[in-house]
């Protein structure tokens, strides 16, 4: 299997990559980086300009894997590579969340962890994990439960909140093209999350991670709710040192959360 990092993980959140390799080593699955891969390129913003450009760069990335399965941990990369691979019937593309869920299952994941993490989290799927649903038949296009189940199997509580299935405001080129709109959307989302009184926001996409993490600083509203990629949480539950997961390199850091993650809870059953 080849890991496709995309720009965001390779260039902004390498802790996500470190965590992912730790998890796969732990599970005994061979995976190596897809060397020389470029920007996927990001689906909506690239298609806003040229679909031909979108397809040709994506095809170059898919061909680099030489028919090996491509694994991504980003909803944007997932959408681009999956849609283009299906259109041209070349390669296989998986998102790490649906891969773990269907290949190892909740029981398999539960067996693999060293400690439970009893924290309250707000999960955010990110629109492009489950929509457009044409190529994504593994979950519901309205109210997916996969990520809720994936965090709960680690001993965390997935708390319901207002605007749970709303966009983070980072997609569609809106963050790049209309920053005020992007931050307004984020603020609405953050209000819902703040009401839920959680220890962390758990995402499965580094673009959402970036929007929540950097965006909270830009909003200047003192929400101070840390954001973690699911794979970082899983790696910590499997025993990766919290520092090595990279979460302390994110912009929003909470000592309270770090303490809870370091401590965990002995996995009794």
């Amino acid at each position, binding site marked *: 299997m080849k890991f496709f990092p995309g720009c965001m993980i390779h260039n902004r959140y390498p802790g996500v990559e470190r965590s992912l390799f730790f998890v796969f080593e732990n599970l005994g699955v061979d995976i190596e980086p897809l060397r020389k891969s470029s920007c996927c390129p990001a689906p909506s913003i690239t298609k806003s*300009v040229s679909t031909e450009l979108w397809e040709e760069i994506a095809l170059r990335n898919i061909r680099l894997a030489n028919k090996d399965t491509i694994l991504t941990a980003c909803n944007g990369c997932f959408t681009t590579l999956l849609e283009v691979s299906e259109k041209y019937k070349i390669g296989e593309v998986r998102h790490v969340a649906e891969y773990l869920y269907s290949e190892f299952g909740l029981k398999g994941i539960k067996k693999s962890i060293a400690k439970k993490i009893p924290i309250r989290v707000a999960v955010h799927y990110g629109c492009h994990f489950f929509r*457009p649903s044409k190529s994504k038949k593994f979950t519901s296009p309205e109210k997916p439960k996969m990520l809720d189940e994936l965090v709960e199997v680690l001993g965390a509580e997935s708390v319901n909140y207002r605007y749970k299935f709303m966009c983070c405001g980072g997609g569609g080129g809106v963050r*790049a*093209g209309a920053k005020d709109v992007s931050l307004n959307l984020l603020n609405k989302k953050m209000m819902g999350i703040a009401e839920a009184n959680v220890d962390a926001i758990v995402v499965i996409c580094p673009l959402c991670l970036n929007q929540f993490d950097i965006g909270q600083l830009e909003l200047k509203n003192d929400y101070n709710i840390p954001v973690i990629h699911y794979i970082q949480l899983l790696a910590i539950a499997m025993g990766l040192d919290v520092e*090595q997961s990279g979460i302390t390199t994110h912009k929003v850091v909470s000592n309270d959360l770090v303490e809870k993650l370091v401590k965990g809870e002995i996995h009794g059953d």
Partner: protein
Amino acid sequence: MNDVCTLLNKCIQCGTCIGSCFSGRITALNTRKILMEFIAKGKPIEDSDTIWFCVTCYACQERCPRGIPLVDILLKARRSMIMKRGLPDKLNGIFKFLYEFSAFVPAKEEHIDLRRKFNLELYHSQFVEDAKNEVRSIVEKYIGGLIK
């Protein structure tokens, strides 16, 4: 454009699209109205600047009872707008990054240091000259003339 016309004329103005639209709650983006003006007056979709406020969450497209691929249509309208008026200034910068670094989000020195901290190699095409040039030539081929 004929295929799009046929698709849009399926619209029954039920408002499910705008009811599903989070961006429409805080901006002037009104997908139902954009469709209505196209059907009733023939106003091209690319004449509405508000199409840039769509975050492409695809909720409208998933829920449309008439199966209109609304987000795909808005993206197509963005392309037509760019053909007429050029690349918007705010997007020019990131497409320049794609051309120069083969990344919408290129790494700077601090990000390279961060990768070293985690003991990770630099293998994105941004750091591999021949790979970066391959991507650059694809960008040049399709939108070379658009980037300022």
